[in-house]
């Protein structure tokens, strides 16, 4: 198997991880099982290696102005210690990637991007620097990242630090937090729909942090968790995955991310085409669907309604928390209404489904 190893590769093997190739990386799809790991995150805690993600620093006098033209969301009221989610678009409104921007200072930002897009995003950012007074530094390989997610995440993390991590609000972060004796950035973010933390560290510190968190979490029922449940967890919350719900052809508006596209902001890449798309009506939209027949929809399967193809499945899977099979589908706007009955072509068999509200799961606590 070919691929890049994260700093935790040997740790994964030690913990019984089943290694697969994912976007050029060698990572565990599961350890004990996708469903057990999914349930652990929903009921106690799971620990993910997300070191493959990309970390790009933007520093300089015009870092803010540069980022404002690069992303669709508005960073104007972003505070130091706060992070914000945003799509990043091409000039035609198609999506380059979706990312998080952390504000460390008025001239210092950390941009966290999808692992599969690091090189593409870096090149895109370089192409768009123009004359902005900003310096970009790609620290992806030097940075490790662990995601501790679940209702017990805070209790576990508090065992390893004297810093008041419980006070970190959602989509906020604290820098220079000593966790198990290692200097980290602790962010109250995640891709699972549960409470949790994404912990950034020196790549070489990742293994020690992993072991410390696993030890501290043992009594709380923590499990090492892989890519398999990472996907089922975000899918239940209907969080987009680039390459599925977002792409060069799927704009953030089509993906239902309009609240992260601030069309009244000053010029940014894709602003005019996105405004036009909103004014003219979206051609297709990403909707949620529940499979009502017997079968599992998978990405790429055609969606039919009234005898014709109206779109395709972008992500399809069992939803373990719900005990049902669900799908996210990109379909013609004319059919994009809650309650609409559709058919999904599952390897030649038409399985009935119904359009339902998103998200499929929302935590109550």
């Amino acid at each position: 198997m070919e691929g890049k190893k994260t700093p935790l590769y040997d740790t994964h093997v030690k913990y019984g991880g089943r290694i697969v190739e994912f976007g050029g990386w060698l990572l565990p799809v599961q350890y004990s099982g996708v469903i057990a790991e999914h349930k652990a995150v929903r009921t106690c805690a799971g620990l993910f290696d997300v070191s493959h993600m990309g970390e790009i620093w933007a520093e300089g006098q015009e870092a803010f102005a540069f980022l404002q033209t690069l992303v669709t969301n508005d960073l104007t009221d972003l505070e130091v210690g706060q992070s914000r989610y945003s799509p990043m678009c091409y000039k035609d409104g198609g999506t380059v990637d979706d990312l998080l921007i952390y504000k460390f200072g008025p001239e210092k930002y950390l941009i966290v991007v999808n692992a599969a897009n690091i090189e593409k995003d870096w090149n895109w950012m370089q192409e768009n620097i123009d004359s902005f007074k900003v310096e970009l530094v790609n620290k992806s390989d030097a940075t490790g990242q662990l995601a501790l997610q679940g209702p017990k995440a805070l209790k576990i993390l508090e065992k390893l630090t004297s810093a008041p991590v419980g006070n970190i609000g959602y989509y906020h972060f604290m820098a220079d937090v000593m966790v198990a004796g290692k200097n980290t950035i602790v962010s109250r973010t995640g891709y699972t729909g549960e409470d949790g933390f994404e912990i950034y560290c020196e790549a070489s510190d990742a293994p020690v942090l992993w072991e410390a968190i696993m030890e501290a979490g043992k009594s709380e029922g923590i499990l090492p968790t892989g890519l398999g449940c990472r996907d089922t967890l975000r899918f239940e919350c209907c969080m987009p995955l680039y390459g599925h719900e977002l792409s060069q052809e799927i704009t953030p508006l089509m993906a239902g991310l309009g609240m992260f596209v601030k069309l009244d902001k000053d010029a940014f890449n894709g602003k005019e085409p996105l405004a036009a798309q909103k004014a003219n009506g979206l051609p297709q939209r990403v909707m949620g669907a529940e499979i009502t027949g017997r079968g599992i929809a998978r990405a790429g399967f055609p969606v039919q309604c009234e005898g014709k193809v109206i779109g395709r499945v972008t992500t399809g899977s069992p939803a373990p928390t719900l005990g049902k099979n669900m799908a996210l589908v990109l379909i013609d706007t004319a059919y994009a209404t809650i309650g609409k009955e559709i058919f999904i072509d599952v390897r030649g068999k038409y399985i009935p489904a119904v359009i339902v509200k998103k998200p499929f799961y929302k935590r109550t606590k």
Partner: protein
Amino acid sequence: MKIPAELKYSSDHEWVKVEGNKATIGITDFAQDQLGDVVFVEVPALDTELNATEGLGTIESVKAVSDVYSPVSGKVVEVNEQLEDAPQLINEDAYGKGWICVVELSNTAELDDLLNAADYEKLLLEEA
């Protein structure tokens, strides 16, 4: 990996239990472990005429779809309906409660083409 001595095996990781002219078919412990959590099983319809090496159904895990091939030819006379509501039986008891279907053999000579437990174990070691 469990490899019961009394069963016969295909190189596609199916097992066969022969009783008279009937054969019960399932997937091996190795196969269920490779698949991970089974969430959906498509079994053949009763009275289907199967031919050896042709597909008889599919088994799906959370992430993957896997075809099941019939090791023998014959008519499907029983299917395990429990797999509809409890697909995880294949993970829990691959050689017992996880059985998929029973076939009335049309050509018992085919059984000689199948592997015995020792040969199947050798196959697994070679694949590793």
